[in-house]
């Protein structure tokens, strides 16, 4: 690996090739027309990388002919605990179905079935986690991603697989380049552009869950270091999953009648969420699981014995990877209860990210962001299932169109001696683990990072003392561990950079969690156990200023739905 092996120029560069990034690439190319050059890079192979190929079947879409916009707005904001960007909710509801139809039409042209249909030929619609009046469609994620890859290629978009972007180079307030490395070819790339779309994902800290272990917040850290404003990191999220195996599909499992039982055999979720019970939102589930265990009623099991034969087949069809795991482990989850735990997700899904407006603009000129690298603004804390894909679809498309439009008039930023010196400096620092003859292998640092974040006192039922101890650990680890990381090859080098990124994202999460002195969403503070609508209808913002990390609460508009009470009981508290 030398200084820079490859230079790639574009009008629009999209970093991240999941649903949002792929759509951004297609839309940017449409906006730019034939002469425009669009490049999409992905850390893995576009179409088989990130969360999108493992999206467990649900894409929520508002159907104007059947649904009531006011009802949906009320539901998403109440479930999102008023932290939602309500203008984003409105935009997303308007556009999520047309985006789904567009992808489905492309799929049909390629002979691929993206969305499931009912007996009348309309998109199949269901209710699962969190849905009261809202409903979701059922999507086949691998055909969806195959469709997008083919559409990108057909449209003349350049795809660069296996480029892990580690840094954004800034000069005079503008992002002028992106530095990437390819662990398979052992090469480095400098990507230049007029306009940039950030569409990779967040950071899951290599925790329990399928399809997420390569998500280590690489682009969130690069954006933070470049001075891009971010927010809502205190809402670091969790899904739930099997204690012993990495599987996915909870939305479908509870949608087909799955129940959570504690050690006493109680279907306890009704005590925490009397309306939704087992279909409660993720924050209700994971905080309730921790509370049940803390109070001696654990462990928690998932019982899916009530699923109909047809629904069992649907689950097998939509979740083939999970059922290969079940089958090989000798477990039939429809016949025997399976021990179920909170599965730490960190900053993916609703758990914090780049702050954007409804045009997907960030605070830096000519830089847009879409999909899961943002806090998923319409979600609020976490509203209902299927918003993630719906938002990735809409924001990807909008970011691409707006970036393409922007690039038509933007000038290419200069890349002179000063900027190239910055590239050299960055590469020297990133490649340092390769140059060491010995040291600590990256994976030796995983347990330290996970122990600082995942245990209940930091990850779930939080206390100031546990958060402060975690912050100290993460800060110390950056000083002690990073200078001694050793990478015998380029694969291990990528892992070493991932370690750096996980530590930084963890630090931002804990700093933000210390800042929010109330309980809301995934953020439960034992020392501030109520939701405080009087003082905390605010987003916790975070931004790098000089060498300092600035954290501050920021008010935001609530134009359509406002809370009625000053104080409310948050998730994770038994109500009956």
């Amino acid at each position, binding site marked *: 690996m030398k200084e820079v092996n490859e230079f790639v120029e574009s009008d629009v560069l999209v970093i991240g090739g999941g649903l949002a990034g792929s759509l951004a690439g297609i839309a940017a190319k449409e906006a730019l027309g034939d002469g425009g050059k669009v490049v999409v890079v992905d850390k893995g192979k576009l179409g*088989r990388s990130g969360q999108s190929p493992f999206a467990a079947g649900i894409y929520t879409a508002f159907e104007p002919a059947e649904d009531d916009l006011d009802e949906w707005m009320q539901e998403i904001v109440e479930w999102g605990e008023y932290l939602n960007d309500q203008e984003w909710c409105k935009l997303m509801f308007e556009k999520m179905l047309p985006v789904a139809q567009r992808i489905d039409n492309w799929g049909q042209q390629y002979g691929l079935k993206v969305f499931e249909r009912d007996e009348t030929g309309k998109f199949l619609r269901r209710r699962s986690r969190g849905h009261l009046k809202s409903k979701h469609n059922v999507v086949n994620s691998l055909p969806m991603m195959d469709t997008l890859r083919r559409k990108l290629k057909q449209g003349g978009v350049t795809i660069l697989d296996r480029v892990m972007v580690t840094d954004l180079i800034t000069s005079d307030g503008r992002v002028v380049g992106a530095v990437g490395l390819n*662990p*398979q070819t052992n090469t480095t790339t400098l990507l230049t552009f007029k306009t940039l779309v950030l569409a990779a994902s967040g950071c899951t800290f290599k925790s329990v869950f399928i399809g997420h272990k390569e998500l280590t917040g690489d682009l969130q850290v690069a954006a933070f270091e470049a001075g891009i404003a971010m927010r809502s990191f205190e809402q670091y999220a969790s899904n739930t999953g099997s204690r012993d195996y990495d599987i996915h599909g909870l939305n479908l499992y509870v949608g087909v009648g799955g129940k959570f039982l504690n050690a006493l055999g109680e279907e306890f979720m009704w005590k925490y969420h009397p309306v939704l019970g087992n279909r409660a939102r993720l924050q209700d589930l994971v905080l309730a699981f921790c509370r049940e265990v803390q109070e001696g009623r654990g462990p928690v099991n998932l019982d899916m014995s009530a699923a109909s034969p047809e629904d069992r087949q649907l689950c097998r069809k939509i979740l083939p990877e999970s059922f290969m795991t079940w089958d*090989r482990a000798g477990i039939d989850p429809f016949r025997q209860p399976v021990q179920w735990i*909170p599965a730490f997700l960190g900053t993916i899904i609703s758990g914090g990210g780049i702050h954007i407006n409804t045009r997907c603009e960030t605070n830096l000129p000519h830089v847009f962001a879409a999909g899961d690298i943002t806090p998923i603004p319409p979600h609020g804390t976490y509203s209902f299932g299927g918003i993630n894909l719906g938002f990735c679809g809409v924001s990807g498309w909008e970011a691409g169109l707006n970036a393409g439009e922007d690039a038509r008039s933007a000038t290419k930023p200069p890349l002179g001696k000063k900027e190239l010196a910055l590239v050299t400096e960055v590469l020297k620092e990133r490649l340092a683990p390769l140059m060491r003859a010995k040291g600590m292998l990256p*994976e030796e640092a*995983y347990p330290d990072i996970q122990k600082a974040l995942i245990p209940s006192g930091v990850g779930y039922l939080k206390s100031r003392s546990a958060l402060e101890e975690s912050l100290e650990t993460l800060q110390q680890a950056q000083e002690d561990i990073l200078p001694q990381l050793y990478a015998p090859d380029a*694969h291990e080098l990528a892992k070493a950079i991932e370690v750096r990124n996980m530590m930084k994202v963890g630090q931002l999460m804990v700093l933000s969690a210390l800042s929010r002195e109330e309980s809301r969403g995934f953020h439960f503070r034992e020392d501030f156990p109520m939701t405080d609508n009087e003082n905390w209808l605010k987003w916790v913002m975070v931004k790098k200023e000089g060498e300092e990390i600035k954290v501050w609460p920021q008010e935001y508009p609530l134009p359509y739905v406002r809370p009625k009470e000053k104080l409310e009981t948050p998730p994770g508290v038994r109500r009956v």
Partner: protein
Amino acid sequence: MVVKHIDYDKCNDCGICYDICPLDVYRKVGRTHYIAYQKDCMTCFLCELECPTNAIYVGPERGRQPVLPY
């Protein structure tokens, strides 16, 4: 246990496993692909599902035991 083995009597050297693995677990010597970073496998089954000759077997257990919340 993660990705356990490639059956080289069945493998046709197509390289799909190397191409698609999200965790970059595979490497190649000449035209032959092998499991180079087994512990990084996240048991996603993509390589096995897409292998055209059914040469790959993935076991369900995790490569590393992560920290649990309680």
